[in-house]
């Protein structure tokens, strides 16, 4: 187990280095000279030169890469170009609101999707099953923008059931008042693709030999489905869920933007709009690290559900 952890952590090093390299290439070669971008905003030639020096832009690429690696290792990405707020502080303060929205979405969506998928699997290849699948396909075809635009307009603006946007101070207030509609819309967007996927996972298991054995034992359909089939189907479901986690953090940036939730996603969009490189770079690196850690957790989680998995 500890050998496994050590090896997996060791394997993260080249990946992280690759991510650093990719981000470096993107921002230092492809993006051109960042000092000019800054120049447009500051409009002071004397300051530009000082910024060039400050950023190390007059150094060789090797030294610049070294600086960037040092930033990653010390977790100090400097300050935002547009607000001068330290990047570390931006990330620390934005992560909370994101999680307040994301965790309920994730939990509700997953539980609901598994529930519906199991129900649909019971009536597989019936008319109900096909109707729900068609409905899912149609629901997936509508842009998530439309869900948010229409949802916000109808439910908040027209009916006034929810605040149109905003964010409060206390967790309770945020969770119950401000996050309610964003969570509802997030679930609405995510439920259809997940039901479709989970149904496939369950149906893949239904045709396995061990299900026939379970029936031959005289077990009732509920035990067969909920105990034998679902437990096996959980393995691909976990894989899918964990792979989806980091994307979820960014993926619901639109929701954050529409509802003015001060989260990471909204921060990314604003940073992109303002060409605020330090913020984008920092978030990219942090999310990449989070992804790698989540992958490791996935492997540990496998061990919990699947006895065949050996952590070597």
């Amino acid at each position, binding site marked *: 187990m500890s*050998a496994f952890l050590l090896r997996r952590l060791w394997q993260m090093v080249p990946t992280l280095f690759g991510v650093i390299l990719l981000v470096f290439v993107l921002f230092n070669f492809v993006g051109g000279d960042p000092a000019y971008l800054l120049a447009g905003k500051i409009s002071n030639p004397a300051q530009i030169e000082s910024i060039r020096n400050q950023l190390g832009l007059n150094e060789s690429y090797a030294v610049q890469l070294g600086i960037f690696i040092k930033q990653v290792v010390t977790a100090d990405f400097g300050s935002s170009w547009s607000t001068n707020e330290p990047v570390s502080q931006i990330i620390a303060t934005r992560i909370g609101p994101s999680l307040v929205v994301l965790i309920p979405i994730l939990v509700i969506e997953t539980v609901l999707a598994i529930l519906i998928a199991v129900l649909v699997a019971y009536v597989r290849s019936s008319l109900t099953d096909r109707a729900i699948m068609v409905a899912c396909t149609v629901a997936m075809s509508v842009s998530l923008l439309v869900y948010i635009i229409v949802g916000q307009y109808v439910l908040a603006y027209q009916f006034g059931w929810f605040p149109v946007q905003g964010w409060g101070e206390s967790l309770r207030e945020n969770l119950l008042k401000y996050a309610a509609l964003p969570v509802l819309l997030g679930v609405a967007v995510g439920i259809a693709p997940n039901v479709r996927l989970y149904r496939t996972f369950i149906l893949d298991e239904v045709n396995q030999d061990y299900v*026939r*054995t379970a029936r*031959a*034992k*005289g077990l*009732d359909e509920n*035990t067969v489905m909920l105990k034998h089939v679902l437990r*096996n189907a959980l393995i691909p479901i976990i894989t899918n869920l964990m792979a989806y986690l980091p994307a979820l953090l960014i993926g619901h940036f639109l929701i954050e933007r529409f509802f003015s939730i001060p989260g990471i996603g909204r921060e990314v969009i604003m940073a992109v709009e303002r060409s605020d490189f330090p913020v984008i770079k920092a978030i990219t690196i942090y999310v990449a690290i989070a992804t790698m850690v989540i992958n490791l957790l996935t492997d540990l989680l496998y061990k919990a559900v699947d*006895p065949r998995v050996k952590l070597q």
Partner: protein
Amino acid sequence: MSELLSVSHLRVSFRLDKATTIEAVKGVSFTVSAGETLAIVGESGSGKSVTALAIMGLLPKENSNVAAGSSVRWQGRELLGLPNRELRTLRGSDIAMIFQDPMSSLNPLFTVGDQIAEVLVTHHEMTWKAARKRAVALLDEVGIPEPAQRAKLYPFQLSGGQQQRGMIAMAMAGEPKLLIADEPTTALDVTIQKQIIELVNTLREKRGMAVMWISHDLAVVGEIADRVIVMRHGEIRETGTVADIFTRPQDAYTQALLQCHPPLDHRPRRLAVIDDFLEGKPPAIALQREARPQVGAGETAIAPILEVRNLSKHFEFREGLFGKRLLKAVDNVSFTLPKGRTVGLVGESGSGKSTVGLTIMRLHQATAGEVLFEGKNLLTMSAREQMPYKRRIQIIFQNPYASLNPRFVVGDILLEPMRIHGIGANEREREALARTLLDKVGLPALTLRKYPHEFSGGQRQRIAIARALSLQPDVLICDESVSALDVSVQAQVLNLLQDLRDEFGMSYLFISHDLAVVKYIADQVLVMHAGEIVESAPSDDIYRNPQHAYTRNLLRAIPRGYAHKTLVAS
């Protein structure tokens, strides 16, 4: 004897798509009495397994249909159309079932003990604690050592034989009056098969239950059955006591099945093929009886075409942080293949016999050793140097469905090797050659324009043989080449291989798990066990007088059918 199960006019069909429906079982009637063993024998597609699933009510709901007028009665009570709730009380308690592949038939995520206990909790209203305790006793009964520890293991931690014992324990848990065993030993090695057969026989006698044993192998059936039903294409060809079926078979198909498999006690010139019987032609018994001479005496006089010296193939697995585990799949194997002769390589699964073939072909990289072809080491050659030798050694694989590229027409499959090696002056000439080859393997010239999926397993294996022959090789490696084929088709392909060897003077390395087949075709037999050759002797000698304990064990395990049973009884 009281009648337990009565099946009458059972018809089952499957809907493949909107247009096609196939009838898998076409009006089958039979009965099973308490305490008897009824065997259903048939080749693939005979409908024997579908019959069993229909009795259990386990046919897939989506696309199967049991025709009106069919009837399955359990102790007088009609099961077809019975609500699932009532059927469930019978399944796993009165009627239990075990399947072909124990690994996939057990749920991978639950311990063996819990899976057995589940039956007891379901049918006997036991507590989980009591049920788990009883599960250990059942595992003990089916001969699993250290049952208390094994009960806590997951299926993947047990060997194939132990998994099947676990399945049997699960079936026994409900104290069934009838055990349906659907090809329970087909996926197992011959030594394990023998143990499972003995176990089921013991349990049947002890518990007085009836057994419905489904198999493709008449020899196995002969050892276990009281009565036998022979099925083909969804119909019953013949029903009789085991003595009648084996000594006085009435149906031509039954006769064919009995004669197609290579016998162990003599060595016919040719094997009987199914068409001889079905077309009413008297089978060429005379030809069959005429023993093929044992070659081997004066073997040293024949120059070896292939010499394998100290061949080893080790696989490494990563373990822990830096640790490695070594699997010696082939370890220090040496033998010679004389020109024009057949060497048989026999062993159970995991013995490394197939790895030997693949390593000789350089489809696996050898760890150590030499493979000398006419004195030149194939293993150290560069790719370019090896090209002319690739033409001279060819291989035929086990699975006829996997060994032909499904996207190529047969013409391309046969022409490609000739193109690569520049055989034939032009495409026309090559095509003419391909037609000749197809003729040799008994397929029409039309075959050239068709895709592999249009052919049966036996036909595909003929195409694979034709592909190998297109290079006019000197050595042919047959890696379990007839193992996936039905016994009647197997005989045809074995005859074909014999004819081709005689015609072209090829040398065969014939790899198989089936000792009877190896004895029939090989001049010299090598027995492999755990990566090593444990015995090597001329084919007839090894069966008459095996030296090594493993060989003796292997030979004892071969099911010999009814004749053997009577012999033991007298």
